[in-house]
């Protein structure tokens, strides 16, 4: 019984690990995209033809920067969220692993084989 439960447990943990990996990958991809956009926005600002336009573009770049900052936080939060999920699963499994055994004697008899 325990061997089989052990295997199921491994499968489940592996699944969560891969899930976490997936989530991190896509969060990172999102951050990379934003970095790219920010770089581009700053470049645009640098080459602005007029001052008002430069101001405008700088503001846009700042906004992007803020959004990126927020995304970092979100990423951080999500990472922690993933860890919490795993903890919760571990707790759940720990709880369910508590093994209880009950025993009831049914009968006792003498036998003779002919």
């Amino acid at each position: 019984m325990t061997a089989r439960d052990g295997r199921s447990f491994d499968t489940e943990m592996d699944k969560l690990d891969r899930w976490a990996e997936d989530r991190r990958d896509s969060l990172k991809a999102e951050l990379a995209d934003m970095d790219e956009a920010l770089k581009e926005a700053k470049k645009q600002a640098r080459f602005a033809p007029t001052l008002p336009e430069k101001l405008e573009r700088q503001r846009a770049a700042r906004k992007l920067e803020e959004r990126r900052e927020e995304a970092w936080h979100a990423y951080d939060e999500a990472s922690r969220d993933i860890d919490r999920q795993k903890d919760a699963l571990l707790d759940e499994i720990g709880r369910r692993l508590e093994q209880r055994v009950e025993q009831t004697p049914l009968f006792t008899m003498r036998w003779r084989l002919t």
Partner: protein
Amino acid sequence: MITDFHAKYFAYEITKRCSSGSVEKLTAVLADAQVDLNPHQIEAALFAFRSPFSKGAILADEVGLGKTIEAGLLLAQNWAERKRRMLVIVPANLRKQWTQELADKFYLPCAILEARSFNAAVRAGNLNPFQQDAIIVCSYQFARSKEPYLRQTGWDLIVIDEAHRLRNVYKSSSKIALAIKQAVAPFPKVLLTATPLQNSLLELYGLVSIIDEFAFGDLKSYRARFVRPNRADDFAELKARLRPICKRTLRRQVLEYVKYTNRHALVEEFEPSPDEQRLYDLVSDYLQRPHLYALPASQRQLVTLILRKLLASSTYAISGTLEGLANRLEATEAAASPATAPATAPAATLEDDLAADWEDIDELADEWDGDSASEAPAEDEAVRLTPEQLAELRREKELLREFCALAKSITTNSKGEALLKALRRGFEVAAEAQRSQGGATLQQKAVIFTESRRTQDYLFRLLEQTEFAGKVMLFNGTNNAPLAKSIYQGWLQQHAGTDRISGSPSADMRAALVEHFRDHAAIFIATEAAAEGINLQFCNLVVNYDLPWNPQRVEQRIGRCHRYGQKFDVVVVNFLNKKNAADVRVYQLLDEKFRLFDGVFGASDEVLGAVESGVDFEKRIAGIYQQCRTTEQIQFEFDQLQLDLEAQISSGQRDAREKLLDNFDQEVVEKVRIESHAMLDRFNDQLWRLTRHVLADHASFTDDGFGFMLHTNPFPGETINPGPYRMAKGVEDANTYRVGHPLAQRVLARARELEPEPAEVVCDYAGSGKNIAILEPLRGRSGWLACAHVSMSALESEDQLVFAGVSDDGEAMDQAQCRRLFDLPAEAGGAAPSARRRGGGARPYVDGQPSDSAHRDDRPRRPLVRH
């Protein structure tokens, strides 16, 4: 012969809880099932909840491998464990079939929930009708509309059939799919589909996310990595992630367990008479008018479709309906006309009117409505009509009367005449199939499908004048003809006192009629709605008198006969009106593109799966009929439809599907086959021996056929059917004795309660005729044996029966030896040893050692437990 010890032990064995990975877990359900289960089905059912963490599975076998049975096993297992909150979500036209199969094969009570039964239950005081002591079966649309009720029911298991309808759930536009996904999210579930992916690997993501949100991170990372897996290891990774969730078996992998037969098509062409053609053109033109008083705008599409189908069905079908429409207009006219006193509004709604002829209307409306919540049919006829409008209405009424008169004047239908020819041809080919496939006696049987009640009556009258007179019978939603009633009465008499009579008159009527067809009649004229879910595998000729446009419905019809248990090739007869360009094209699509009428499996998964729902296809065809006036237009539109269809079919990801989901393991399946056979034999043997023991004083047993009859009531004070009973599958002349039967349950409970005094049991090895190697060394010896029931609960609960045994000469017996000892016939060998000691009688000695001196203290000893 056995003793109380045996009975008690067997009862505990039979009722013990097992771990979910083992074949043993399903043994009781397998023993109960009224169908021989194939090993791949057992394996699939075990697969779904093999891991105690499992949230469910996608069972994606090819068509024809019995996915319903796999799900039925799971439902039955839960039911046996007293987990009673179970839901089956299916397309509306499969609801009856599901309830019938679950009842017939697994003795599971089901309730179909739809607006009507739901409201009735609420009125009766059940505020959440999803909570009943039965398995709930409902349509996708209904599940969606009652989402809050679904959420607040603590489901033990949800089965979703034809789950490819949900495969676009990853798109935010799939409203129904998303709603269902969210409503069922917290519960264990099983998705059934033969086409888990059709157009894109994203669909697989969608389906898997319904089962388990944690199998893949999110859509974004899935898309980046798996949608076009370039690298071999990405592909391997995807496959590995799917492995614990998705199981697929192909037909070619199980050919040795399942036998398949072929399907052939026969086309009977006919030409309408000039009068028939005139009627067709007139009504068709009428239906194409932009505004009609007879057809309320809200139901225009649906009613138009039905009128067209009735028009194609028979002149009798259309004339009755036209008359109804004219009468309704008359009533409206009377109500609106200021001259007369306000007349009573038409009592019945248009839908009720149509439903009298077209039984399927509720279901069709359910399917066609889809997203719009079913609005109350507003009787807005009270709207005041201008005098001009009133005049128009009057003209429309007159027109309808003219059509009706014309239809009534046509008594000979060209298609009806063609039917006789088609039947004779069909019987010939069907008989040929039976002969070539080794049929012992020829069965001349045909089922004729029509969608209209009036057409059904017409066909009955028609065939009664031919050589088939006296062998024709009707099957429809009401079954109130005198013939049906007398068949029913006869059936009731024949089966009086047995479990065959369910007590539900409509279900019993259906069973009686199907049995009558099997044993006596030759031609079974069925309306499509009524025939849903019945099994006619003893008949191999299917006649589509009128043909549905929805390919899935056609497949359903043919599937009544071309199904598990059919021994011969099935012949499908269709009619084709050569004068009607659109009819010809529809037939061509169904035949050539969907391949409904030929081949081993009829419509292939690829193609049926390509149209997410056959209703959309049906709607599109209805649109073409409605808009096109010239043959050129018709041809153009159908070419267009065909192109679209081909695009859908060819982009099918057949390759990916095969490679990704193929995790079939011949060895595993073979092992399951052997294990399940052994388990079943043992299980049935124990149940039978225990029953004989417990009922010994109350029943007379027949040794040959595992039958018995009660002569006294073994459970005084309770109502027990005296029988006869027989333990076997497919029993017709007696009650089926099986572990789930109430009598067996009582017998088991009594055996569990036995408290046999310690006694000597003499096991007869020599006389058993059995050869059990591990018992050989114990022959001629004696000893002590104790049995305990051990229940363990960790991730799940499991019971085991543990023995401790020792021979009088001090040799310990192992578990297998103790267990096998109970396989032998035995009898109580006189008084208990303790009594015997006191009485000074002869005690068994082995090798000169008195048994009690060495082991007296062992007798009450607690068995050692190891696990």
